[in-house]
């Protein structure tokens, strides 16, 4: 996958380049408004145009340039090629359908795409298997439930089940653990990692939570104001963050007890995309800001081991 610059009237993404290898889990980390969901939607081709418009760049999936395809061709990839799971599980599920009907819809997509001959009992087995895979207790009971009868963690797994039953080769997960408490969150992450190991499904995990991303991702991309600030292997980024934004993001996570000093949180808030600062977009909040930072935007600088950082400090070293 390559450059995607998406424009509404505001520039939401600028010069974002991701490369996802088969079987990898990559994490896209950023705070609200950093453009991470837009990126996910752009990859699966779900951005409504208008208002969104990809000005430049390409999205290449398995050698096919998605931007050169017509909607019919794209829809052939959607679901069975690329699947996406959204944050709002309650909104993503049809409230008047039982789990069974929701899953059957997805199986239908798979059946048509791969021209499978499925008997009702095979379909039922597939559903039960997938729910078992997602470690849902009593799958037979869950199949007969409406979304509102399920807990948040269960609903989120139903949305994941709907995506993975189509056996996508790439799964985009947008904030799938947000709003779940830590214990359910851990469970979800284990399930995803397990799924990745067993089936080799490639995953893009979009989250605002660096801790979540660090648990299962091989590679991390840190986004801010529609730009990539830093990327690299998970353990490298976590153990030695280079970009001041990544450093601040990590320092903001409380670690100590009540007698520990105030958190070194970055001051201010993420910029409004309609009124972006000049130069480096993080410079107004950066503790190491130099004159240069307000004038020019730093280009991504390639370091060892697939590490890239967009910061003028790095050039100096």
């Amino acid at each position: 996958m390559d450059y995607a610059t998406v424009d509404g009237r505001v520039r939401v993404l600028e010069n974002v380049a991701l490369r996802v290898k088969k079987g990898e889990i990559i994490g896209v980390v950023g705070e609200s408004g950093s453009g991470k969901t837009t990126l996910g939607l752009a990859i699966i081709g779900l951005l409504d145009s208008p208002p969104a418009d990809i000005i430049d760049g390409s999205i290449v999936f398995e050698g096919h340039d998605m931007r050169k395809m017509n909607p019919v061709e794209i829809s052939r990839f959607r679901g069975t090629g690329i699947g996406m799971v959204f944050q709002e599980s309650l909104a993503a599920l049809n409230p008047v359908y039982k789990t069974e009907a929701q899953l059957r819809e997805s199986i239908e997509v798979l059946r048509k795409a791969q021209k499978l001959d499925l008997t009702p009992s095979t379909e039922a087995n597939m559903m039960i298997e997938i729910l078992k895979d997602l470690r849902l207790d009593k799958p037979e009971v869950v199949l007969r439930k409406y979304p509102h009868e399920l807990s948040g963690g269960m609903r989120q797994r139903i949305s994941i089940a709907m995506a993975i039953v189509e056996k996508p080769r790439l799964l985009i997960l947008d904030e799938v653990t947000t709003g779940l408490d830590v214990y359910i969150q851990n469970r979800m992450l284990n399930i995803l990692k397990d799924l990745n190991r067993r089936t080799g499904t490639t995953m893009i995990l979009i989250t605002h939570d660096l801790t979540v991303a660090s648990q299962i991702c091989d590679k991390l991309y840190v986004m801010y104001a529609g730009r990539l600030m830093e990327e690299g292997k998970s353990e490298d980024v976590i153990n030695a963050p280079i970009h001041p934004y990544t450093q601040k993001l990590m320092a903001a996570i409380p670690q100590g007890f009540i007698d520990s000093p105030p958190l070194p949180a970055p001051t201010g808030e993420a910029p409004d995309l309609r009124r972006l600062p000049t130069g480096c977009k993080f410079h107004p909040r950066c503790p190491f800001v130099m004159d240069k930072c307000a004038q020019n935007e730093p280009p991504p600088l390639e370091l060892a081991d697939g590490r890239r950082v967009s910061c003028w400090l790095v050039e100096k070293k």
Partner: protein
Amino acid sequence: MSNIVEADNLTVTFRARGGGSFLFERGSRMINAVDNASFRVREGESFGLAGETGSGKSTIARVLVGLYRPRSGSIKLLGKEINFRRKEDIAYLRRNVGIVFQDPVGSLNPRSKVREIFAEALLASKAFARRDFGSRIETMIEIVGLRKSSIEAYPRELSGGEKQRVSLARALVVPRKLLVLDEPTSSLDVSIQAQVLNTLRKLKSELQLSFLFITHDINVIKYMSNSLGILYYGKLVEVGKTVDVVTNPKHPYTKKLMANVPNLKRAERKQEVLSEQGPAPTGCIYSKVCPEAFEKCVNPPPMFSLGSDRFAACHLYDGNGTRKEQLRSHPAG
């Protein structure tokens, strides 16, 4: 040090409507959202309540501002026992206790400007004369770190962090003794969460507040509380100084909880995860999934005192703790 809140054997019951399980008659199931919980919030301290979704954390928060009435047990606020059937007592609670909810969007009236939101709280309390409203509002805006211009803003014009600061300022616009914070930063980005947590700690010392801090995030509660209570399906299973509970958990559930705290530097996750199985219907509520369960656990354990303000509701501590007799006001279930 005196106690701001003394809660003893607090039990809150809800009637579950419809869809009762096979054991119960349809529509007549009673659920103990909070079951026999006893805890203290000391003056100038922050008491944390941690637990999973549905463990009864928010129910306790709501009792403290008089939104729910306990079925049994007692609550003392500043030494005064609250009779939840008396209007004056509820008013007394609300005068002294401020509350901040998780969802800043849902808790602010979208059609009122920030100034009006504060004025409403001030009018209800009668603590300030009307001519002093303006200066009081300005003071609060400044204390919580909001821009002056936000006074004339509508909630939608503010960011998530700013909205939560408005909720915070509203809770404190009338001077309070106790602030109940129910997941106050769970909907915020980490960098904004850090700013709000810093502000809360600053306010606590500047305004000599006590906190009841509720969250499922152990990293946050560790950073924000002096003492900590762990809730599991409405049951307070362990209480103690935060540093003790976090570093040396006693109750098997607390042990599991602490092992699940997400840590940035931990490369490989522990495979062991918390079970989603519900509470045990009889005996110790955790006995169904407890790795250390034994014969005694068929009976509900009392709270055992383990010294230095440490309590655990677990039969493992029968021998080395002193039994703290509990009044079981009604049978479980």
